[in-house]
């Protein structure tokens, strides 16, 4: 399997990342600040992605596997103890283990280079695949923000997860 690595988002990546995020299958999954759950053009997404080149109170990485295959972001605006992360993989590169690899690299960075006691992430309740992926990362479910959006004529929730440092340490010690 191609080696996945994270590298900081560079100006040269903005167009490719924005084009990836414009894929219709990623509506509601992009994880960008101020985003809408609607199809958006790569041009419309460029400003948001451009802001990831030098993020405040956080980091943003291209998920690279011989090219841009995803985007990983992390932030700690409110408290450095409890950063959050969000990972998006290009639909053309999903179901190959790249998301898990990228998530593992993000957790390693956050737990090895910051004071985080846990890392939060969240998934909309309609996204069954996303929920399965989130569960597989080892975090515990923390609840759900009710009625956090609309999709296909229905309100949906957003399910929260938190991976504790101890859980990450145990998994790392076990070689997982």
């Amino acid at each position: 399997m191609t080696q996945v690595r994270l590298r900081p988002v560079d100006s040269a990546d903005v167009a490719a990342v924005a084009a990836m995020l414009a894929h219709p299958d990623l509506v509601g999954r992009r994880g960008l600040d101020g985003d809408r759950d609607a199809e958006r053009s790569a041009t419309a997404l460029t400003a948001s992605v451009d802001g990831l080149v030098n993020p405040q109170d956080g980091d943003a990485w291209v998920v690279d596997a011989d090219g841009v295959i995803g985007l990983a972001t992390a932030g700690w605006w409110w408290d450095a103890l409890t950063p959050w992360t969000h990972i998006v993989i290009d639909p053309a590169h999903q179901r190959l283990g790249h998301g898990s690899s990228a998530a593992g690299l993000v957790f390693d960075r956050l737990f090895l280079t910051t004071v985080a006691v846990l890392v939060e992430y969240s998934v909309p309740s309609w996204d069954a695949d996303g929920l399965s992926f989130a569960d597989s990362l080892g975090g515990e479910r923390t609840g759900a923000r009710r009625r956090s959006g609309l999709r296909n004529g229905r309100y949906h929730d957003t399910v929260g997860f938190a991976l504790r440092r101890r859980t990450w340490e145990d998994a790392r010690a076990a070689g997982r």
Partner: protein
Amino acid sequence: MPLEGDMIRLREVRESDLEMFVRLRNDLATQAWSRTLPPDYTVEMIRRRYWDRDFSYRRDHGIFVVELKVGGDVAGMVSYSDVVDRMEASWGLAIDERFWGTGVALDAGDTLLRFLFDELGLRVVRLYTHTGNPRAVAAFGKLGFREAVRVPNAIFKSGHHADNLSMDLLREEWFALHPELEDRLIDPFGS
């Protein structure tokens, strides 16, 4: 028509309120934690925060002083922010300790909720707090808020860890607590 409850009215911020805002902002027991530290905010800092707000028809927040209808004492403030039009907002409340246990907090909080549901037409209202402030959590429960997300040990305050809580209140839940009111908002998606 003023925003009025049984005991209080909500009004705009005035110059004479700023000392109270400083006192509330710098209170380590309630408002001062995490990013809001250190508790050394000044009247001038608070003035710039509230006076720099421009006139706009695209505002995503509101701040109200809680004033007693009898006597005119100022008891605290309520606010909302992060509005998604006709969908949701975050709700906040800070009441001077002199008025704790008097019902003022519940009256003020519920008056703001009525504004959010009946005027802004929101479908859900959220708040963020922590288990280190059980008095506040209990009060929010009385207003109808339910625990939505609990992140264990995510807060560090006063030398201890506490759970971070997100609570939310759906529109129909609030109206169920107020049978004297009728919800006439057209909701194409139902409840």
